[in-house]
Structures are given as C-alpha cells and as structure tokens.
C-alpha cells in the first residue's frame, strides 16, 4: 500500500492535478466511479482535437 502522503508528494513533484478520494489501494475495484471520472476528466482535457 502506498501511503497517501507519499502519493501526494510524488504527484506534486510531477506537477500533476490531484484528485484525492477516501479509497483503499484498489479503487478501480472498490470505487470504480471515481477512477473512471478521473480518467474521463483527463481525456476531455488532454485528448480534445
């Protein structure tokens, strides 16, 4: 399991947009709507022609 503070530190280092949610280490199974939401948001912001 990757500690939340470690994830935040790494995300800030890479200049990422951060979407924090109260999930376990497998959110694609236990909170799939949140994961899909982040992916769709990213797609809309970065893949638009």
């Amino acid at each position, binding site marked *: *399991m*990757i500690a939340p503070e470690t*994830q935040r530190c*790494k*995300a800030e*280092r*890479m*200049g*990422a*947009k*951060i*979407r924090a949610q109260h*999930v*376990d*280490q*497998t*959110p*694609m*199974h*236990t*909170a799939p709507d949140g*994961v899909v939401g*982040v*992916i769709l948001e*990213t*797609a809309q*912001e*970065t*893949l638009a022609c």
Partner: protein
Amino acid sequence: MCAPIPLTSLAEDIAALQRAIGITRGPLLLAGHAYAGAVIAGAKDDRMKSLVNVAALAPDVFYRAKPHPEARRISSRMAWADLDARRRFCARVAHKASPDQTTILEVVQRPIAVKCIQEKAPVPAWKRNHRGFS
C-alpha cells in the same frame, strides 16, 4: 485497451506496454495503478498526451521502491501457490473490497518479480513535457 504486462521486470513491462501502444491509433492517455505508474511513466510515444496515476508509484530517475515485506515474501512463484499468503496480501491492499471482489483479486493477482521495483527507472514521461495527472 489493457496492456498485458508480464510483471517480470520494469524494462520488460515497459516493452510490453510499448507493443500494446504500437497497435493503437490516435492520441494516447495512459492510466496505471500502483506499480504500473512506473510502467506508464517509462513509455515513449509522440501520441502520449496524459498520464493517470491511480494510487500509483511515480518514480524519478534512479528511484527504487522498497518492496512491501509481504510482497517480497510472496513474490516467488512457489510462495504464490500459498492461498493464505495471497489472502493476507489482498486484505492489506483491498480492505474495502467485498468478499466476492476479494476472491476475484486473490485468483487473478499474479506474482510480481522484485526486479520490477528494484530496476532503475528510466527518465519518466512527466519529465519529458507530458502533462501528468494523479
């Protein structure tokens, strides 16, 4: 599409992702969970537009992760046959999963070679002018 990475080493996993990328067309969004954050950051393609890291590693150059003690213990294929060990591992990483989900995770989770997180990471994509998301 889901790139079938073998979990044998970081370089081999990145190579498998590159092969999957090779059969796609159009702009690319790469999403990776946990260790796969290191894999997607190692991919190179002019069509890459974004990275989505889901509870993921984002190694910088030369970074090496410390394996979870349990992951190291059950990383050998022999130990992987131990269902109790898999159950303990899944309980640690998927504590919000339902019993049915946990059963599936125990079955489909494959062993990961310690080499995956002990190899030096290449220059990550987010250092090569890609936008990063987490």
